[in-house]
């Protein structure tokens, strides 16, 4: 909403943005990031979702309308934006405990102790990139700070990463800054969390866990890089709870998921990175935001046909309001991720390729059209217009598979079979799977290759002792 206002202001048209009371603070900080720190806001008292028509009318007439008039006709206040200290300035000298206390008190930490980002430690990270430390990777809303190689290293140190993770950290921030991903949505109320998927020989080279406990903490590269992601969102992009991270609940950052590429090679399936267009054998990160997940336990069956219904059922029973990303809010952007344990992947692969699996899910993981439409506009106000799926088909926004007038007909969850993402990892000796439900354009999948610095092998040997 504020982005639209900023564009209008840029075009010279005065705006007044309507804003529910609980979001005024976020709106003010976000408008700073948009480069229009004084975007005029009109308050709607409370939250519209739980107000009767009469209450809403009274609130709008009593408060909002006068502010809209004032915003459009009144004087615009001059504003000045804060400046950060010089990135290379030493902001504090003190003991480990004192550094940690100061970082916590000033909102620079996630609640756990950080490794103090000393110049020496930062230098050891910078040694693992040939990019100049002032190199600008991109500009990150809402604070609009410039992502630099330097501040990547600083947050990497803080998160407990090792210097040799630096090439991965740089690739992650390149992905974060990619407009396709949409980092600006990271503070929205569903509070989804990013899952990083790692591919390439670097998985083994740096000792990532990709077997039992693949999504569990306890493995330095998986854990510390996952933590880095959240620290970077906080310290550089500027997403802080109670400020402009408005996740109603949110959840903890996710550890990096590394794929079991041995199994993938054995069954001849492409990696997630390969599905995203990265050349085979390249190291790459893939990021995407997921609202939540669930484990699919005790999948029984010695054939693909017996196993696949478990996956289809999980997808149908967990996809709900997120279907506004299949059609409605941002059509064709719903990308749920299935993580298959090696046993299940191997069972399916006896007769099917990954493409076959995606096609099977497209045809069989289906829900009644009436329920789908309820998610779109019956139970939320997220998709206005109350268009039926059939209307969307006629508008060319959905494929034919959604067409029809029978409310009980079964329709797919995604618009293309390949929108189901499939990874392989986890305990090689247990028949469980995992499902992550996707947040659409509010964190769309983006892959970046990991560029290793010249002399990587020698540097790594030195770093690993």
């Amino acid at each position, binding site marked *: 909403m504020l982005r639209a206002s900023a564009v209008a202001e840029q075009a010279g048209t005065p705006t007044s943005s309507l804003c529910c009371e609980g979001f005024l*603070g976020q709106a*003010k*900080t976000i408008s700073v990031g948009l480069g229009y720190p004084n975007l005029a806001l009109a308050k709607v008292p409370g939250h519209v979702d739980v107000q009767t028509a009469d209450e809403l009318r009274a609130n709008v007439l009593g408060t909002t309308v006068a502010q809209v008039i004032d915003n459009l006709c009144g004087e615009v206040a001059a*504003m*000045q934006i*804060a400046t950060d200290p010089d990135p290379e300035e030493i902001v504090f000298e*003190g003991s480990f405990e*004192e550094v940690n206390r100061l970082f916590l008190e*000033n909102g620079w930490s996630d609640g756990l102790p950080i490794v103090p980002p000393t110049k020496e430690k930062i230098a050891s990270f910078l040694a693992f990139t040939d990019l100049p430390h002032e190199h600008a990777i991109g500009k990150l809303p809402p*604070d609009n700070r410039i992502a630099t190689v330097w501040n990547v290293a600083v947050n990497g140190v803080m998160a407990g990463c090792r210097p040799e993770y630096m090439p991965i950290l740089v690739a992650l921030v390149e992905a974060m800054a990619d407009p396709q991903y949409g980092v600006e949505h990271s503070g929205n109320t569903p509070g989804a969390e990013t899952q990083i998927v790692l591919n390439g020989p670097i998985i083994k080279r740096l000792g990532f866990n990709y077997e039992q406990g693949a999504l569990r903490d306890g493995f330095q590269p998986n854990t510390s890089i996952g933590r880095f992601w959240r620290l970077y969102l906080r310290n550089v992009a500027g997403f802080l709870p109670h400020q402009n991270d408005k996740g109603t609940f949110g959840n903890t950052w996710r550890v990096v998921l590394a794929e079991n590429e041995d199994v993938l090679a054995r069954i001849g399936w492409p990696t997630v990175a390969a599905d995203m267009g990265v050349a085979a054998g390249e190291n790459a990160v893939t990021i995407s935001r997921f609202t939540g997940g669930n484990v699919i336990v005790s999948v029984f069956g010695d054939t693909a046909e017996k196993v696949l219904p478990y996956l289809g059922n999980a997808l149908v029973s967990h996809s709900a309001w997120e279907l506004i990303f299949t059609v409605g809010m941002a059509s064709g952007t719903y990308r749920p991720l299935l993580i298959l344990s090696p046993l299940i992947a191997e069972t399916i692969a006896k007769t099917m390729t990954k493409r076959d699996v995606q096609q099977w899910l497209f045809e069989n993981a289906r829900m009644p059209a009436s329920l789908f439409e309820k998610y779109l506009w019956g139970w939320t106000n997220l998709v206005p217009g109350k268009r039926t799926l059939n209307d969307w088909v006629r508008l060319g926004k959905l494929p034919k598979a959604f067409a029809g007038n029978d409310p009980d007909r079964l329709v797919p969850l995604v618009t293309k079979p390949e929108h189901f993402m499939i990874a392989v990892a986890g305990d090689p000796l247990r028949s469980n799977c995992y499902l992550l439900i996707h947040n659409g354009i509010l964190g769309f999948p983006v892959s970046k290759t990991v560029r290793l610095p010249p002399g990587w092998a020698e540097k790594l040997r030195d770093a690993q002792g």
Partner: protein
Amino acid sequence: MSDAGSLWIVIPTGQLASGAWVDDLRGAPAAPFPRQRVEVVRGPRAEERIQELFQRRGWSDGLPVVPPTLARVNAALAFAPRAPGDVLGEIEPLKGLATVEKIAANAVMAGCRPEYLPVVLAAVACLLDPAFNLRGVQTTDENVAPLLLVSGPVALELDVNGSFGALGPGWQANAAIGRAIRLVMHNLGGGRPGVVGYAGLAQPGRYTLCLAENAEKNPWEPLHVEAGLAASASAVTLMRAETVINVTGGLAEIASVMGTAASGFGILWSGRPTVLLAPAVAADCARRGMGKDAVRQFLWRHGRWRREEWRTSWLATRIVAEGGWPDWVEEAARTGNIPAARTPDDIVLCVAGGDIPIPQNAYCPSWGFPPARITREVALPRDWTALLTAARDAADALAAN
């Protein structure tokens, strides 16, 4: 570097919604300080360093402050019925955000006990009422100051003085709560003299101007009941006071002081002047069957600026253009002298001070627009009584040591 004598300070100066610091908007660069929430001031002599640093940064009213350490600010926040990050509003004119935590830091600096915070928060809520016109109060060339009246049980519980010497030194609550409001205006609103504030002389009431209604000696309904609150509630009532003029005597003497050029600006802006009525005068009125309305009627009828003086006054001849006076003033001038307020109800009446036979009243003329008499209930934390007892016990223990 590290030592046990370090102090962890909550930075008390204002930050805007945009992230900008009030200090960076005041023109002349202040002494450097870290643009962050919390700062560590290293010892030895950290307390003394803080006094020196805060003076140089312009974060004081000129007197030494109590360093707003995290421990002290957190102790005050325990008394807040709201979360530390909650924003009460923007303090005009430089629009520093009045978060509960920033208010608490300034209250600590002012010398408030932790348990004063609910009153300070209610007072800041009054400041933020658009009718108070804080922007005007902060920037005008007049000498106006906020006049804070505390009424209800909390005045007694916090020992806010409404009796002997209520406007003078010697009472912690009166001194510190009023000062807290000033520091909020100063540090969050940026109201530094000569930079943002251009009062010709200002007045000592700008250090603090806070007292309680004398509930024991008040023969009438309390201020907050007049404002529509329950008698059992506690409240703060805020007015704009140009100054405090002592009046020894009774209603006639008060009226004679009201009917002078002292009321000029109040008349020009249809303001709400305050009369602090001595207990002896109030008792005398009550004995004669006068209620508050009758007292106000009397003061309104008799406290009139003589028409000739008004017409030839500096205000009328040098400042106010033809037709610039409110209609009610012109109307009054057609038939006689000018009342000190638009209506009797615009006169704020509060019984205060010690009960002495030679009664000491005060007249506080108003300044500016719009007419303002703002009352806010003091919201107390759920476990107020227990917290208050614990705070008193802790203070006793400290003294006994």
